């Protein structure tokens, strides 16, 4: 059974189409990264899964249940870290957790949960109104973990977290996955998704434009290694070098840039490329090979600037 199944989901707000016929399946036991720039429709999609908003067309199932008809039953078995939430200013961290535990009829220990998300007992006794964004995020993550849910839906979970918090978040995602939970994880920050996810879906302008494993996407994007070669041109035209390299098999693209060549080639063609350049009479001053990162893939797929890597305070 699929943990999440979207079937032709379209959502329009007035004349704006937030989601256009999205089909998506997330298998049980996966860590699924839902990637896309801000405003791509990720939160709308998650809000549909939680029955916060209703699809204009199409339908969705979570844990085999219809999101419209059986939303409460779904949320009994799901832990959620929503986007754009606010905590209850006058209730303490402990009281938030007690509320979640009572609502879920679970027997989780609030102290243990606080410890897992890195909040101290003293912080737990303080009113959540005085929490920083990061502390609130940790508290709501702890609420999501109440009752060992089968599915975790985390909407931009690392926003507001410092690098340590982001690492903790990734560790918790892995631990929960090892326990058997499916994790649905949305982010506009590539490194977060790349680091933990088995499968990635990329959403742009309300459309799912790619879905594959991280490796699969990497291969599908270019299948290439990027080679940066700095030449000592010594009077020779760099264009000659471009011609030489372009003529090689296994090279898919060459871009000259002020005495430097950026070459897309297959991983095992690196030495051939360097030899060909030297045979043509150029001196290679320096070279660097880069495996294409998901960030490049992301750029390839979305043709937008890679999402600003949020300065995490």
């Amino acid at each position, binding site marked *: 059974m699929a943990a999440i199944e979207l079937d032709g989901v379209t959502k329009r707000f007035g004349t704006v189409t937030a989601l256009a016929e999205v089909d998506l399946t997330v298998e049980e036991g996966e860590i699924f990264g839902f990637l896309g720039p801000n405003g791509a429709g990720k939160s709308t999609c998650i809000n549909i899964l939680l029955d916060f908003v209703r699809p204009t067309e199409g339908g969705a199932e979570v844990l085999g249940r219809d999101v419209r008809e059986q939303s409460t039953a779904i*949320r009994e078995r799901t832990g959620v870290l929503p986007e754009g*939430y606010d905590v209850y200013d006058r209730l303490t961290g402990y009281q938030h957790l*007690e509320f979640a535990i009572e609502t879920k009829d679970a027997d989780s220990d*609030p102290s243990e949960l606080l410890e897992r998300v890195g909040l101290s007992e003293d912080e737990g006794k303080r009113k959540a109104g005085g929490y920083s964004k990061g502390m609130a995020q940790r508290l709501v993550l702890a609420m999501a973990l109440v009752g060992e849910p089968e599915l975790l839906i985390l909407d931009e979970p690392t926003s507001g977290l410092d690098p340590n918090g982001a690492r903790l978040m990734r560790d918790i995602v892995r631990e929960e996955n090892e326990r058997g939970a499916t994790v649905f994880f949305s982010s506009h920050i590539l490194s977060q998704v790349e680091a933990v996810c088995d499968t990635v879906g990329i959403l742009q302008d309300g459309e799912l434009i790619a879905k594959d494993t991280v490796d699969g996407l990497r291969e599908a994007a270019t299948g290439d290694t990027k080679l940066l070669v700095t030449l000592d041109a010594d009077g020779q035209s760099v264009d000659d070098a471009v011609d030489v390299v372009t003529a090689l098999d296994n090279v898919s693209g060459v871009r000259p840039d002020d005495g430097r060549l950026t070459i897309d080639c297959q991983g095992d063609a690196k030495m051939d490329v360097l030899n060909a350049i030297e045979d043509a009479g150029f001196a290679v001053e320096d070279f660097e090979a880069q495996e294409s990162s998901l960030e490049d893939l992301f750029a390839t797929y979305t043709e937008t600037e890679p999402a600003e890597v949020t300065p995490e305070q």
Partner: protein
Amino acid sequence: MSTRDNPFEGLNGALNAADNQLRDTFGWYTVAKKEFRDASRSKGLWLLTVVFVSVFILPVVLALYFSINLVSRGGADIGMQLLISTYYLNVVTILLPIIAIFIGYAAISKERTSGSLKLLLSLPNSRRDVVLGKVFGRCAVIAVPLAVALGLGALFFAASNIALKPGIYAQFSLFTLALTVVFVAIAVSISGAVSTNTRSAIVNFITYFYFAFGWNGIVNGIGSFLSDYLGIQGSARWHIVLFAKLLNPTQAYKTLTNSMLGQGSLSARFGMFSQGGLLSSGLSNEALTTVCGSVLGGSPATQETQFGTTRVICEGSTPAPYFSDVAVFLYMFVWVGIAAVISYKTFNLADL
């Protein structure tokens, strides 16, 4: 579960058992409890308690410590009833609904705007649980300080030279709590049906205005419409008009209190037709005779006033069961049901 820092629960095992039982039985209970816990930590609630207590004990304190004779000498026996009919009745019907609106108008819309509603609905609460939990939770928020104030009021009466009539005071307290809870429930329901606090405040105050000042005008208009356009006249018309009057919780509260203070239920219902309202018009003696005789089942009689005109008085003890005090008390809650259903239906359709 940690209960050590909460004075409102966990006093003993029985309370915990009741807590668990309620939680298992009612989906809204956990939301209501959270709501009350949240509010009981707000300074506003304590301020509210102080206001209620002052309002309810002030006249008694004046009587007790300053020996201000509120009535005439020897009026101690009926002093409490007089205080209720002159002072408390007005305070309750004017002030309490306004306070109730303040308590309830942002209950759901504020959570919707701030985003804490997402926290509530990320947990396995249905939208119905949220509306009901909010209604019950906020009702408790106002009912507890009000009950404290009423209780203290009784103690002060007992200590003063004004006789405390426990039966009458208990009924008065019950009606007052009911009216307040009804207004909170309506305010919370409106809050769930709109998307922002401002809209909720506007709709709430329009509702308050109609209940407080515009109701009789509307009801009389309905009566004329029935008579002029549908040909519904006489007894049927005035039955409908009286029902409509009783559907205003404030009027239901007043007629109940008047009945309890010794007028008797029939006379109190009849009195609703001579009570003023901003837009109400006086009824003809013929109409009043119909109201008394056919609608309430009393004996109408004509009496000459000191100005040489005649007026209708109505004698008799109990009206038909559907106009009895118990029925009127139940009618007070009709709006709670209507408001909650509208609220849930609207809220349930909304994209959050």
